[in-house]
């Protein structure tokens, strides 16, 4: 076995990279499914599996392996950034821009101030004041970041839509920028305070402006390019290649130029969605379909890299103060910010709970702090942030789920495909469809058919069991001989039922069966005796699904109205 393609895992066993990749995907998905069954967001399941196989437990995925998977992580963050960018529509900002900025500043600065005060205060017990303050402001700045990945993954999983969802999407997108800015200022201040190399506040801000501004430019330029390419691309395969290729390029270029990768990906998504709202839907659909395995792998790796390491008592206390301060600061800031901005009561109440997640940016900034602050403060920052990430990544997603559920926004952002996947046949079957007794003469059948709009009718026996069906095509042959209508019965002209569905059958399966047999309808029965339930008719089903999607969207939009009124 090639040393380059395998790594030493538990008990010295060499695991080929592709095997680890596949196992992570498989068990990550299984873990997600189990957690979903327990009504916990799937992302927690992926992370839990990662923790199990990672450095904290089995060590099947060790540090080297994690390093090798880093490009997957970058790509996953890029995809997530791109998808979030797709949510940043200009009309939302035109409408709610002021509200979003106020809320962003309040929740970000809330976490920054509370964490800075708490950790500085606590650190004074263990270190000199200038070190304590330096540590406090750096931790405070890092605390302001919110991980978009785990947060929006929950929003997507539960198909949420409404004012809280819109606000969270916008905040997690903008949050990174605020955290980077705060960190630049805090680290400049801290390095000055601790006597490390003084880069100066102006230089730090300039560097941050390059980091953020450069990313936005790269993303926007790539967005214009992708929009142009999609305009000339009709085939799905080419659109997929262009979209993934452009995203990969944005990630690569920003890594090369040391710019913010997630912001650039967001700018790409935001540019595409705002330049061509309709055409770009395809690019986002493509990415959405392509993304799930990348997410699974990414979150398994997030879990695998988590380690509690050798935490001393004082570090535990600082970590505790960090989590408590961040949670309290986010909730307080978000509540006050949403109130000042005139957002609805539900947003004020639940926004803070959606902002607990912490991951990539926070860990990245903590790593930077090691360079900026040097030992031992840098190590303290890294250990505290890593350890608390461990905790908030497990608590954050369920908190988001709780918040959006309480705000009544779950299940409102659905497509017809989502509904097809969620429904059972019993949820959509037409129970009022006319059914004829098999002894009914055609003279009585035909007037009913003339006054209803079905394309097929069911025929039942004395015990209301499905006996056959009448189709317009089949009836056509009996229409010519009017004299026969008095004595020709439904029994005589009914045709055998080509297939049937049951109440409990997943709707997806029923639709697949109809498609395979080229049927426009499928009778629905119950139990072994074929007791009739009703009819699933393609035309009516499509109408129902379209109406349901519109109804849910209208419901979400109605909930959004108080936000506009309050602004």
């Amino acid at each position: 076995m090639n040393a380059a393609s395998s790594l030493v895992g538990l008990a010295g066993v060499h695991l080929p990279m592709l095997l680890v990749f596949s196992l992570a995907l498989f068990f990550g998905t299984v873990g997600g499914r189990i957690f979903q069954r327990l009504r916990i967001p799937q992302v927690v399941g992926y992370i839990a599996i990662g923790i199990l196989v990672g450095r904290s437990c089995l060590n099947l995925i060790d540090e080297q392996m994690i390093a090798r998977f880093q490009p997957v992580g970058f790509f996953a963050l890029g995809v997530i950034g791109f998808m979030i960018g797709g949510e940043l529509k200009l009309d939302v900002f035109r409408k709610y821009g002021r509200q979003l900025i106020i809320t962003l500043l309040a929740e970000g600065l809330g976490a920054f101030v509370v964490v800075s005060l708490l950790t500085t205060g606590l650190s004074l017990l263990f270190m000199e004041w200038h070190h304590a303050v330096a540590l406090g402001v750096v931790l405070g700045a890092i605390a302001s970041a919110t991980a978009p990945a785990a947060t929006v993954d929950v929003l997507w999983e539960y198909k949420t839509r409404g004012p809280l969802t819109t606000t969270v999407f916008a905040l997690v997108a903008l949050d990174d920028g605020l955290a980077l800015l705060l960190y630049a200022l805090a680290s400049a201040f801290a390095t000055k305070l601790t006597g490390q190399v003084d880069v100066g506040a102006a230089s730090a801000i300039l560097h941050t402006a390059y980091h953020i501004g450069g990313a936005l430019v790269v993303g926007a330029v790539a967005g214009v390019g992708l929009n142009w390419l999609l305009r000339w691309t009709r085939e799905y395969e080419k659109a997929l290649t262009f979209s993934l290729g452009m995203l990969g390029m944005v990630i690569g270029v920003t890594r090369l130029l040391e710019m913010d990768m997630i912001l650039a990906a967001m700018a790409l998504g935001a540019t595409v969605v705002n330049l061509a709202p309709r055409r770009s839907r395809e690019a986002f659909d493509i990415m959405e379909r392509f993304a799930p395995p990348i997410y699974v792998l990414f979150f398994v790796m997030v879990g695998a890299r988590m380690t509690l390491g050798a935490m001393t008592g004082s570090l535990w206390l600082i970590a505790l103060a960090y989590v408590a301060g961040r949670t309290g600061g986010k909730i307080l800031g978000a509540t006050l910010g949403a109130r000042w901005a005139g957002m609805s009561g539900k947003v004020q109440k639940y926004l803070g709970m959606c902002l607990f997640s912490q991951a990539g940016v926070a860990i990245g900034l903590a790593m930077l702090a090691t360079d900026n602050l040097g030992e031992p403060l840098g190590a303290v920052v890294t250990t505290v942030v890593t350890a608390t990430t461990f905790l908030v990544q497990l608590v954050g997603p369920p908190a988001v789920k709780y918040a959006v559920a309480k705000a009544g926004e779950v299940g409102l952002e659905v497509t017809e495909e989502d509904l097809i996947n969620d429904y059972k046949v019993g949820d959509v079957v037409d129970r009022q469809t006319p059914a004829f007794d098999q002894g009914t003469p055609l003279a009585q059948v035909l007037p009913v058919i003339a006054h209803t709009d079905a394309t097929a009718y069911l025929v039942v026996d004395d015990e209301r069991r499905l006996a056959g069906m009448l189709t317009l095509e089949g009836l056509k042959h009996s229409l010519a001989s009017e004299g026969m209508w008095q004595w020709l019965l439904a029994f005589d002209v009914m045709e055998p039922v080509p297939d049937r569905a049951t109440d409990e059958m997943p709707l997806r399966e029923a639709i697949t069966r109809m498609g395979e047999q080229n049927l426009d309808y499928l009778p629905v029965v119950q139990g072994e005796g074929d007791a009739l339930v009703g009819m699933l008719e393609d035309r009516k089903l499509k109408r129902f699904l379209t109406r349901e999607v519109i109804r849910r969207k209208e419901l979400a939009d109605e909930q959004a109205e108080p936000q506009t009124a309050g602004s």
Partner: protein
Amino acid sequence: MPRPIETIWTDMAALAEYLTPEAVTILDCPSKAEALSALAAHHVGVHSQVDLAELTAAIHQREKLMSTGIGQALAIPHVRLSSVKSATISVALNRRPLDDYESLDNLPVRLLVLIVAPAGKHEIYLQLLSQVVAALKADDVRNAVMQAEAPGTIFDAFLKGQP
């Protein structure tokens, strides 16, 4: 109003594919049930691929729903069987009028036309029903069939519309 003779000839040409001279018989049954059973037995005697028990059960199931006596002394028992591959017709003239047939016009039945079709051949089945009815509703054809005294004569009358 009697139909023009040309259209009847066209219909008959199609019926000739499904009715053979051997499939025509004369019965002398006292009741509807016996006449139907005898007709079924005769049909199976000519078309051995048809199962008698299945055919009899299907005929009686249909009669239970509603009588196939359509008036003017005519009955058209018709069934679809999943076990048969092609459609076939048998004709029986009962010497005695069948008073218990519960026809639409409440008059006795004398002529029975049995149509047996495969379950999947819905279109042919309805076409045969329609053609038999159309042909026998024509007074000249029906009278010729009713007055015949031998199966061969009935067959000729049925197909040619004249004695």
